[in-house]
């Protein structure tokens, strides 16, 4: 099991552009969450997807949107990129019924640089 996989690993965009990041959850997991980690900071929750719907959302503007597919994989879309969107974007998945335990399995992240 490769665990949570994310693509691309690195990418560079310019201000105003749009970006799509992809995530495949760990085998057997049905819930995907996205986090933003700025340099020197802890991960910050963006949103969570379960059964192809956004279930929870953090304090992020509508420029951040997502999608979950029937195979549980997910995409994070960011529109109208700002310099401040430069960060490591982490995907985390969890297994059915583990909402109580709080155990998340993280990917290695996609590092986005906005110039």
């Amino acid at each position, binding site marked *: 099991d490769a*665990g949570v996989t994310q693509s691309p690993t690195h990418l560079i965009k310019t201000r105003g552009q749009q970006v799509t990041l992809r995530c495949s959850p760990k085998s057997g997991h049905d819930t995907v*969450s996205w986090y933003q980690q700025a340099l020197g*900071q802890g991960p910050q*929750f963006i949103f969570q997807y379960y059964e192809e719907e956004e279930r*929870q959302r953090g304090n992020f503007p509508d420029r951040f949107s997502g999608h979950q597919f029937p195979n549980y994989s997910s995409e994070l879309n960011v529109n109208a990129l700002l310099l401040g969107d430069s960060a490591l974007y982490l995907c985390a998945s969890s297994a059915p019924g583990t909402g109580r335990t*709080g155990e*998340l399995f*993280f990917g*290695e992240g996609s590092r986005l640089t906005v110039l």
Partner: protein
Amino acid sequence: AQRVTQPEKLLSVFKGAPVELKCNYSYSGSPELFWYVQYSRQRLQLLLRHISRESIKGFTADLNKGETSFHLKKPFAQEEDSAMYYCAIRPPAGGGNKLTFGTGTQLKVEL
């Protein structure tokens, strides 16, 4: 608003010395608390959670509701403990995957 504070960015100890990584939180209620760890070139992973009252790799963490703290402790540090440690909280009873993380403490165990 919920907040997690880890006052030390870097903690350096000698091998065999005791370790205490500090974590204070603010939350109106009784959140669930976690410690996540990231070893060099590895992914962020769960170390322990307060509801389990477990000891993982010799680490324990005691919840002090009066002081709103959840410090991580280990009596004798090992070289392999060197890593970045994050304290995290989430709302009780079904908080889903919405964790609030602290800024992390880099633990360096020196020989």
